């Protein structure tokens, strides 16, 4: 379930520490658009140090060489540091929330499915369920595909966050 999917080699993860200042996200997004680099997904969050935020950017390295993307990004004055994470050297997680339509007859089946994935039911309505899964992106892909067997009312993914895999020496 965790083996990279087909287009996966095109993607590379950049973990970018930026100053927590107004407009920084616009600077990063503007750089990508004016240089013709493609963003596959983007997650932004504060860090434990309130002066900085962390962007986890999954970039499409077919739109431009990774090195060029990193060097241009690094020129932004508000970008403090960039770590490049090759997919195989990173632990990645992504969260999906989905509301699916499910009648009473199928409710047991879908709850079982969620159990297999170790997801959660986070909200229950008369004929709908909202479910959640946080896992590596490929597993989230599989989960989404299986949910596709039901009627998905709404689905939201966060984009991935990643940290380097620990080596035994660490």
């Amino acid at each position, binding site marked *: 379930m965790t083996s990279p999917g087909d287009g996966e080699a095109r993607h590379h993860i950049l973990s970018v520490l*930026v*100053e927590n200042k*107004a*407009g920084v996200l*616009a*600077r990063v997004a*503007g*750089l990508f658009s*004016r240089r013709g680099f493609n963003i596959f997904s983007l997650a932004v969050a504060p860090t434990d140090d309130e*002066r900085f935020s962390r962007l986890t950017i999954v970039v499409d390295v077919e739109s431009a*060489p990774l*090195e*060029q993307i990193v*060097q*241009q990004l*690094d*020129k*932004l*004055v*508000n*970008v*403090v*540091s960039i770590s490049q994470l090759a997919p195989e050297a990173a632990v990645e997680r992504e969260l999906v929330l989905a509301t699916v339509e499910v009648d009473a007859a199928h409710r047991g089946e879908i709850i079982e499915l969620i159990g297999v994935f170790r997801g959660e039911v986070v909200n229950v309505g008369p004929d709908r369920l909202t479910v959640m899964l946080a896992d590596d992106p490929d597993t989230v892909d599989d989960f989404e595909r299986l949910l596709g067997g039901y009627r998905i009312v709404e689905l939201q993914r966060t984009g991935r966050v990643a940290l380097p895999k620990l080596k035994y020496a660490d």
Partner: protein
Amino acid sequence: MKLTGAQALIKSLETQGVEVMFGLPGGAILPVYDPILDSSIRHVLVRHEQGAGHMAEGYAMVTGRAGVAMVTSGPGATNVVTPLSNAYMDSTPLVVITGQVATSAIGSDAFQECDITGVTMGITKHNWLVKRAEDIPRTVAAAFHVATTGRPGPVLVDLPKDVSNAEMDWYWPTSEADLDLPGYHPRTEGDPAAIAEAVELMLAAERPVLYVGGGVLKARAAGALLELAERTGFPVVTTLMARGAFPDSHPLCLGMPGMHGNYTAVTAMQRADLLVSLGARFDDRVTGRVSAFAPSAKVIHVDIDPAEIGKVRVPEVGIVGDCQRVVERLVAGLEAAGLAHDAAAVRTDTGAKARPGSRAADRPARDAWWAQLRAWQQEFPLHYEDGAGDTLKPQMVVEALRDLSSPDTVVVAGVGQHQMWASQYWRFEHPYTWVNSGGAGTMGFAVPAAIGAKVGRPEKTVWAIDGDGCFQMTAQELVTAAAERIPVKVAILNNAYLGMVRQWQEMFYAERYSEVYLSPDLPDYVKWAEAMGCVGFRADSPEEVGPAIEKANAIDDRPVVVDFRTDAFEKVFPMVPAGGSNDDIVVHPAQSPNRPAR
């Protein structure tokens, strides 16, 4: 000491050592214009804010210091967008201060509100919206630091009116740490291992070329470059942005490469086995079609901007660092390999004699390469044909200007054919004597940039060589020059056309001329010059050129405009057609029959 934000801004500029700024006031910047009355800083009142930006660029390009422009919010700020973009392309250090509506009104579409930090995000090295008066000194210091260090460039500081009016306690940041720039660390020292590799490639080269770009001027590395060239005996090409970084009269100098470069400079790069790129960026105007550029060359790429290395051409050796430092290290590396300084060999093709028994003693001879270069120079010098009868050739005007002016004259160009002729036919002997718009190609650059250059170097003669089309875009700044007693000289190469575009339509659009005719007489440039407080006169024929230039050179109490009526149909040669390979360089038709088969 309590100051208003406006006073703090002016005091910050003074503390930063600013001697002059170019600008024009308006509502949002009004508070800042009051303390200017009491300041030591000279303010030059422009007639259009674009002029302020280009003046600041001209000033920066000849002095190496940041140029400063100040404008109001909204339209004042958007008028300075073109110079910011121009400065960004040419890595010119500028600090532009814009007024902004009060912080409480930001986002409300207030009168003269414009999100100028948003607009200029992609054409500044960085910009700041200052929200508290106490941030002003730190922000100004950071702005100058960012503009002038690393790869220089323009920055913008947007100052809301209420912040200018608010009170703060004066301070001045004393260290880099106070600037609050945790993500800004330009690298200046080249990696020693890469420098050592570069030295090896240089020792092994048979057909080397030193490819010199504007970064050499930014790094004030002309002296170091001369040393490198003379030690190695390598030929030097200077790009449009680097004219003057190496003397044109030096035997090792091949002149300008690129779309309108000379045959030898262009072809030397094409046939080279080693390009040593110093502060150049493999611009499309230099490389032609990239896939066909210098196909057999290994590349050493030295640049202070890591993103330039490998952006267009992947080098064999990339060195991130300041050109001056890196070139000095290269010289030291060559010295260690046995290439000592050799006074007798400087200015010759061979370079220094290597110490017997040293590694450098084994380096391949480059005689065959030099013989080839000299043969090309013989066969394909820059060329134009004298006009029939009274026809005045624009190249002849540039040559006359060159011959009748001192070699340290600062030459400023607009954009078009006249710019190329100025770069080709002037003889640049000193750094910082050439000011032009390279990366952006901004028509209208010359007049205001010349004014800024003259303010920066009042002791030098400043000649703008301008086109009739360009002149009409920013000529009103000559009113500024006359009012402020800034005696620049403007030579209009008046060919009655948007000549460069006319040339492309002639060559690539089957002579279908669309919207390029201007008229030689409308406007009347002489009367216009006079109306602006300048001296104006005209030269129609070759005989009138010399006396007109001498008359202009003798005037030093006000600006002068000379309307040279030049041949409307002259074209710039050589030319590499856009998108074509440099191998397909088109020389002057009179030289074409001699062209060797490849």
